């Protein structure tokens, strides 16, 4: 089995892990956004709360969510280790550097990732933790399902009345957008998929994704802050 540890600890193997976990997170974000857009339905939270109840109680979703936690952790830890190693590979720094030969996002993936991470910590502390591990949330009953469910909708509405929290979300999503601006096409390149035939397509999809998805998420706090109270 030594081949597999040699493989996964080689520079290319580490990058493969970054790429696969990154692509998994990219897929997750689509699902996550699709679910959360139900917050925009003006039904007092019925659709969203029912969905949130399903997501916290369904066995398959629970199983997948452990995979998600693991992948996020692997992506973060591996990313930071790689970035430290890369910084260390040039002990004496240049007096002058040329910023035109590559993009801001590509040079600062670890920094952008860390910003996303701090945002994630705030975000999960606010909603995920309160939903899963506390009984702080009020309960509501809807005709549609037989049991009482936690009213996460009201909690979300309350949270997004704070301007500073909305500001943190905007900054976190900006960092995410930049991270993906480089990361999306980079993940395919790492997998060995770079060819004149299809790379322009991958790059275009990546740019659309990295704008549309963060804007989709950004709409939610803005909606509550400006239009709800």
């Amino acid at each position, binding site marked *: *089995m*030594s*081949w597999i540890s*040699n*493989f996964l600890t*080689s*520079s*290319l*193997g*580490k*990058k*493969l892990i970054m790429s696969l976990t990154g692509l998994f997170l990219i897929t997750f974000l689509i699902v996550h956004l699709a679910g959360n857009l139900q917050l925009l339905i003006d039904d007092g939270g019925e659709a969203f709360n029912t969905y949130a109840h399903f997501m916290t109680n369904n066995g398959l979703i629970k199983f997948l969510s452990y995979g998600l936690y693991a992948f996020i952790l692997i992506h973060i830890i591996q990313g930071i280790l*790689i970035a430290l*190693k*890369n*910084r*260390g*590979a*040039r*002990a*004496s*720094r*240049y*007096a*002058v*550097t*040329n910023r*035109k*030969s*590559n*993009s801001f996002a*590509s*040079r600062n*993936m670890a920094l952008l990732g860390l910003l996303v991470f701090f945002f994630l910590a705030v975000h999960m502390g606010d909603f995920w933790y309160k939903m899963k591990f506390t009984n702080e949330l009020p309960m509501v009953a809807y005709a549609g399902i037989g049991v009482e469910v936690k009213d996460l909708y009201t909690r979300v509405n309350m949270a997004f009345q704070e301007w500073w929290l909305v500001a943190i979300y905007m900054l976190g999503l900006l960092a995410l957008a930049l991270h993906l601006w*480089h990361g999306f*096409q*980079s993940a395919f*390149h*790492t*997998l*060995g*998929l*770079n*060819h*004149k035939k299809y790379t322009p397509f991958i790059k275009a999809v990546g740019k659309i994704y990295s704008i549309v998805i963060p804007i989709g998420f950004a709409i939610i706090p803005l909606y509550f802050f400006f239009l709800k109270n």
Partner: protein
Amino acid sequence: MKLTLKIWRQKNSQTKGKFEVHKIEATPEMSFLEMLDVLNEEIIEKKGEPFAFEHDCREGICGTCSMVINGQPHGPMALTTTCQLHMRHYKDGDTIVIEPFRANAFPVLKDLVVDRSAFDRIIQAGGFVSVSTGQAPDGNSILIEQDVARDAFDAASCIGCGACVAACPNASAMLFTSAKVSHLSLLPQGQVEGAKRVKKMVAQMDKEGFGNCSNTYACEAECPKGISVENIAKMNREYFSAMVSTSDK
């Protein structure tokens, strides 16, 4: 034209270096290296120590003229080595900062001269091609499609200068290594040992202490031979497939 040069002075790999400032009078038709020759002659006349810099062919094919000029390996012109860079691209009064390639895997030997033997060891790790290539007519007896031959030749035009490492924010040697891997693996003569070769060359590259690739593509932007990052993707592909398909542990 009158120029101010800030040039790196470093005794050897053990000592710390620093910049020295020199004024020089250059003409537009001089090459960058000729301008440095003139500087060195002036320094020698004053019984000073000339700056050490590497050069050999002075026609853009050997890859030895390594230096970073105002933050760019081989200076500001695309697809141009330092020896092919001419002073007509500068104007009177310019200040030019000249530093060695900086990477732990390329230790500074003296002033602007760095030790690039890590590249030689990566090539050596690749090993031999067992197919007897014979004389030129034998080579031509194996028919190779035009576009494959073109890609192989493009990869083979890497001169091993190290500008890719110098330009990379991570000091990664992926562009060089991938050019060497692609150049052989595209051709039938090189395919026999292809899987073993890519594994060994990547292992050696990692051992030499280069950073990891983060796909910033600064290497491609600064490469004097226009080597494409498509070679990196190709090497990744070959490495992954070699790792899961070869039987040695």
